[in-house]
């Protein structure tokens, strides 16, 4: 008996619309899951943490904090630390969470369910962590008293967006390759790829989000002329659109690879073996 080439269940949705709808349904469902008081407390800590650090530094710095140094600290705290930590708890368990809850099988037997799970979780992780990052940045800027806070806020909104989009895609790989050890693998990936390879002045750092973020920070803050020569090795001189395009390509490659891996992953029913 052959399969008629129609969407049998008369859903009326063409394949692309159905795929987008499934992905959005997963994203909405994942965001509802994130609205638990435990996750909200963690998010609140993420929002407060950079502001608390900046406040503490300002109070202890006797001669006042240099504005550029303050911006650099904000960069280390928000697009790097807060976004990275947020994604570790939202993106890494994309598959492991479903396996633990016993919901994986419900999703795996739906047409495009695996792909929708990964991409929907990606969208939810980006939205949640991005929102936490943006709130953290706004609160930190409020206590930092920089001369041009709106300009800095605009720059950091872009950095937060690129950080969460890029890093969530990076963490999607450990999430599908080794779901039960995704957190450990993601921390390792962050350290090895983003911080070891990312700071290596060689071709390998071109494939890291951290190089693109640093380069965008330097470009948007117009710091390039003031940077010591040796620091030039750690940033890419290409214009911002090249950095953004590089992250877009990286995200596409990482997510495509993760989707393909997940489509063909098999999880044996543990009670059978």
């Amino acid at each position: 008996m052959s399969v008629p080439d129609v969407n049998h269940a008369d859903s009326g949705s063409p394949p692309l619309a159905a795929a987008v709808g499934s992905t959005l349904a997963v994203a909405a469902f994942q965001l509802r899951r994130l609205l638990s008081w435990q996750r909200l407390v963690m998010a609140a800590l993420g929002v407060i943490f950079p502001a608390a650090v900046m406040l503490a530094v300002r109070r202890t710095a006797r001669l006042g904090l240099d504005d550029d140094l303050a911006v650099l600290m904000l960069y280390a705290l928000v697009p790097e630390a807060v976004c990275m930590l947020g994604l570790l708890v939202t993106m890494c368990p994309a598959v492991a969470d479903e396996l633990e809850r016993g919901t994986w099988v419900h999703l795996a037997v739906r047409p495009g369910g695996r792909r929708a799970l990964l991409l929907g979780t990606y969208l939810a992780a980006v939205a949640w962590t991005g929102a936490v990052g943006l709130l953290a940045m706004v609160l930190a800027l409020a206590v930092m008293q920089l001369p041009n806070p709106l300009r800095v806020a605009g720059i950091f909104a872009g950095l937060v967006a690129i950080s969460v989009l890029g890093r969530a895609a990076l963490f999607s790989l450990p999430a599908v390759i080794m779901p039960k050890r995704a957190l450990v693998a993601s921390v390792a990936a962050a350290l090895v790829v983003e911080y070891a390879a990312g700071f290596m002045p060689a071709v390998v750092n071109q494939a890291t989000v951290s190089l693109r973020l640093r380069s965008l920070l330097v470009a948007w803050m117009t710091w390039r002329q003031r940077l010591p020569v040796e620091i030039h090795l750690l940033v890419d001189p290409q214009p911002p659109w090249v950095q953004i395009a590089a992250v877009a390509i990286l995200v596409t490659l990482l997510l495509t690879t993760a989707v393909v891996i997940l489509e063909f992953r098999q999880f044996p029913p543990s009670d059978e073996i």
Partner: protein
Amino acid sequence: MLSLTHVTKLYGTVIGVNDVTVELGGGAHGLLGPNGAGKTTLLGLVTGQLRPTMGRVRVFGERPFANPRVLRRIGFCPAADITERRATPREWVTYLVRLSGFAGRAAAVRADAALERVGLGEAIDRPLSTLSKGMRQRAKLAGAMAHDPDLLVLDEPFDGLDPVARHDLVGLVRRWAVANDAVAGPRTLLVASHLLHEVEALHAGLAVILGGRLVASGDADEIRELVDSMPSEIRVRCDAPRRLAELVCGTPGADSVRYEGDDTLVVATRQPKLLAERVAAVAAEDRIVIREVLAGDRSLEGIFGRLVRLHRGVGA
């Protein structure tokens, strides 16, 4: 509609299913076997969760693994309980229907209708964590049926249900199986269970799986016939078992005899009915007092037990 040809599934060195060949058409089918027999693996292969290590799986003429066209037509209710506790049945089933390709509004309508059908209309907006296991089981069933599949695969679907709910849902599933889809033709229901009476209640064809192997298939009567063709035992408690053994040994149909205690003779036979009549006749001729005759268990439960024992090499 569904065929497996010499299908083997290995998990490393562990065998999930072993060289299974079976073909199922429309209607209801039961997959019987004790826990760990390979039922869930077999269902995993049919529902596209697993890929066979060897052999060929076809559902609606195509391989189901990573095949959205086939998966769209399958509804699956797994054995594991839902631990998605904060969502309500309405949210959960709507979510699943959306993943089957339906737009938001259509998915909500279908979810509500399915939940109503399984008798969960009253609890539609209560968090799953506040529902009994039986009610969650109904929610799972609604999730499997809501997108109107052509093949419904249920793994231990009536587990945790009270007798009334079990009766209701057996009726619901049976009605689903006999109702033909106007466009796609007959529907197929495949139910895995370790409880024979559940499958018997569905009036389903049977396939018995054990140790990853399909050891018998057919309807209940065919399986009985199959078992009748294997040696079965008749226990005769009488006052002269040794004399009775002498008489029975020369009787056609008696494969072997042995004693159990001082007063019981056990006769193995492939023709239990004929042998029972013969035993009665020779006992009457020789004035042997027969106190009790016990035939092998002919209930489906007994047959299943015998197949299991035969497969394990314990003997009938």
